[in-house]
């Protein structure tokens, strides 16, 4: 058992945590009746995905992906002296010192877009509450059924 934990969970502990968080969100999105609680579940799900992406870009011993000015100037000098012909792999900036910037970029936009879409969802919930007087899904379905029966 301990061996299994050591070989299976410990190297991938972050993914285990994200799967647990993601499933919590999924459970809330399926199992709850209140629309706002469903939205909270979707938000938790989204947060798990953001964490998953960002953790993919983590490198041991690396810092935030901002190239120091001095290092950048050295790179420019290097390229000016004909280093560029050797190709990008001969470049003096060591990529192991900086975290992977790509997941940061993707998640930066995803967070803001997530907030905007959450705002739209909340607006829809407010309109539903104004029209039906409730946010519980079965009651809304009941009311819709009654209206349809009347027609």
């Amino acid at each position, binding site marked *: 058992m301990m061996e299994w934990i050591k070989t*299976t969970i410990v*190297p*991938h*502990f*972050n*993914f*285990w945590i994200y*799967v*647990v968080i*993601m*499933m919590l969100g*999924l*459970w809330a999105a*399926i*199992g709850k*009746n209140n629309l706002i609680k469903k939205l909270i579940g979707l938000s938790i799900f989204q947060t798990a995905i953001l964490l998953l992406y960002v*953790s*993919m*870009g*983590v*490198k*041991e011993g*690396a810092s935030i*992906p*901002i*190239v*120091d*000015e001095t*290092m*950048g100037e050295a*790179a*420019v000098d290097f*390229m000016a002296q004909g280093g*560029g012909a050797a190709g*990008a792999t001969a*470049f003096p*900036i060591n*990529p192991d010192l*900086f975290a*992977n*910037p*790509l*997941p*940061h*970029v993707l998640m*930066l*936009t995803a967070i*803001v*877009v997530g*907030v*905007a*879409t959450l*705002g*739209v969802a*909340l*607006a*829809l919930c*407010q*309109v539903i509450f*104004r029209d039906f007087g409730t946010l519980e899904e079965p009651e809304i379905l009941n009311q819709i059924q009654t209206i349809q029966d009347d027609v």
Partner: protein
Amino acid sequence: MQKLFATIAVIITGAILLNAVEDFPRFGDPHSPPNSGVSGGSVSSSVHYLQNTYLDTRVPNVVTAVLADYRGYDTLFETAVILTAGIAVFAILRVVRRKDEEESTGSEEKACSGEFSTSDSDGEGRHRVVVGTACRVVVPLAQLFGFYIIAHGHPSPGGGFQGGVVLGTSFILLALAGGLGSALGRLREDMYLRLACLGVFIYAGIGLLSLFFRRNFLDYGALSGLLQTGGEEMARSHGIFGVELGVAMTVTSVMFALFANLSTRGELKGGL
């Protein structure tokens, strides 16, 4: 019944996901495929970004450069999505009254306008004194800080999205402190709708400008002749800054629009 179904679905999905976890790279592995590319294949694009960003754009912050230059299309349409969300909330929630209805209740409206000072008589002003006084100090500092974040997207973590959120938060704080009317007095509704559209317009306009110089859409290097920068790298740097300004405008106004519409059910009166 529903909860049972949810539990079964969650357990099955979780088991499938956990089964796949073993194939993922170790946490913090510097040579995992997303970080350095597959072995034997081409080098990962992130390594390319890290090594070439300063040469191409003279921007030390790789995230800003990738966001606004290498992946400029992506960010342009993300900004468009945010604008669309703002318009959608406006279309869903906003209640527009006719003018004669407004006039018939014009006398009562004054009580709801919520000026910064203690104008209303029913104890509401007394409640806002502490928060209002503190926010009178905090809000200008927050706005200054928001502009700082936008302007310092190049050498430090920051940029349009983050600065826009901080600026939008400052307007939300104004609305919380002195009533929504106080914030709407500073940033009127027609103004923030225009500002949101202007942000996307600036972004797409900078892209179109480079089309006029017979280059690709959003290729800011084409602007070097126009900006007199004496090199395409600095032109890209300035182009990134202009784009960030557009993003910040859109994000600021959409954040405030979301708060104003959601907190008042589209009435834009009263509220929190």
